[in-house]
């Protein structure tokens, strides 16, 4: 464990985070090991958030640093090793550009044993389908903050299924609830990123 890295991440000091990663890389550390430290750093951020020392802007900052740190550590594709519970293709539904929640989910799930392929915002149905075909993920995550786009979510889920994918679909975002899950034909709802991890593990039948 690199305590300096963990502390710097918890303090959102991205310069020190990047410096530490560089040092670890130079010392021949594996990406997966660096990821473990970043994950511990993210846990510190999460604690500050629960204790109301950090607010949403800090969570946004943390997910940004995380994204850059992972890239510097060797990229997400390098960590899809034994640790990975599975791959999730993640994106914000067509017509919707809200990405704060999705970015947090992306960062926190990558920290917790999932390989996340983040397609960004306003993701077309075709883009979801295409990626599901090539990546064959175990999970698809769709974020939706606008009730007016529930039908786009429904069409996306239908198209993914029609393409023959068995991926489990998890949805999330402010206005989504259990009845949204039924409406759009998804498999489960996640209330926040932590919940997402639990729901995903349950759907995949791992611990």
């Amino acid at each position, binding site marked *: 464990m690199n305590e300096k890295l963990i502390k710097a991440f918890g303090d959102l000091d991205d310069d020190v985070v990047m410096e530490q990663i560089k040092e670890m890389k130079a010392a021949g550390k594996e990406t997966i090991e660096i990821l473990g430290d970043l994950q511990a750093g993210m846990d510190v951020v999460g604690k500050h958030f629960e204790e109301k020392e950090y607010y949403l802007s800090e969570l*946004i*900052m943390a997910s*940004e640093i995380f994204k850059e740190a992972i890239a510097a550590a060797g990229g997400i594709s390098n960590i899809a090793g034994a640790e990975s519970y599975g791959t999730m293709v993640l994106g914000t539904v067509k017509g919707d*550009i809200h990405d704060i929640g999705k970015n947090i989910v992306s960062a926190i799930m990558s920290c917790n044993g999932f390989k996340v392929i983040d397609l960004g915002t306003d993701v077309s149905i075709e883009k979801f389908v295409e990626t599901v075909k090539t990546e064959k993920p175990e999970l698809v995550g769709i974020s939706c903050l606008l009730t007016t786009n529930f039908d786009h979510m429904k069409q996306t889920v239908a198209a993914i299924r029609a393409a023959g994918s068995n991926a489990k679909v998890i949805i999330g975002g402010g206005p989504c609830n259990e009845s949204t899950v039924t409406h759009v034909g998804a498999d489960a709802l996640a209330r926040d990123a932590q919940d997402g991890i639990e729901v995903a593990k349950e759907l995949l039948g791992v611990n």
Partner: protein
Amino acid sequence: MTNQERYDAALKRILGAVHFEEIDRVPVVLGGLSAHMLHAGGSLAPMMTDPMYATDCMIKTYEEIGLPDGVQHAGFSSYLLSALWLSKVKHPGIELPADELWQVDEKELMQVEDYKDIIDNGFYNWYNRYLVERLDNLPEKLVSFYQSFGKMIENVSAAGMVPFSPLIFTVPFEYFCGGRTMVKFSRDLYKHLDLVKEACAVALPELQQNLRDTFKGYKPIAIWLGAWRTASEFVGPKFWETLVFPYYKALAETALAEGVIPVFHLDSCWDRDVERFLDMPKGCVFSPDSTTDMFRAKKILDGHMAVMGDVPPALLSLGTPGEVKDYCYRIIDELGPKGVILAQGCDIPANAKIENIQAMIEAATSR
């Protein structure tokens, strides 16, 4: 009763509520025009070319279902949002179907270097260039709206409704957060805090002067001080205390000094900082969007700041008139009769049922 008498009575009632005076009943002052446009005009797109369209639709709708005491805005154009949030907006009938709601298209149009530009050259010097260069010559698109503004006020008043808070102002944080995007701006707070602070400080006196200059042309009864991304929910206390609170306070003081009532239009959750509004000058209005607990806020702010709200937008879209009335009666009976204005939370949404809007008005006028 003539419309003039109606207007006078409504104005007295609204001002009475703001100042915690004894009044005959809780006033109702409504905001948000998209549902009215869809109801009376069948589309949103005409507002892009006809500046009076939203006003006409609003008046028509209220003449049909009953008049509220006042309205928060006298007209609307979705171009206005660009000027506030420094973002491009996709408009109905232009980039979007005619009856679809406008959408803020948040992209990073402002760079870190822009803070320097503001510090060196002043806020409005920079802002006016920004509107032209990065927002596709926005001022040109707003000319007809501003030219018709007087007519909007006149028509609303002539219909017997008080145009309560027809102008919107906000703090530098909101402008910068919009232009930078929420993600980048959050990061600026950590990486470039000194620049952000200095640019905010440079902008403040200019924004205050802009209020005064604007009031020379037209002095409204109240103004909105818009607060969307500055919510307690988003911003940690150390930034909130330095970059949010003092700025709203300064703008509120400027408005009050000119005899104009500041209405804090507060989106998202402000629960953490409700007590801080006791440090605002007396005579403002606290208007949360239904995410903040207004019932708790009224207790805390009682006697100091009136509350305005907060029928949840979702209730107006999905609820029944009975449910809307029950919610309104709670506001009127539990929080009234002093220091309360009944209103929607945030804005009346585009898909609000007209009978639910009517229910809000009836709830106030029949109690």
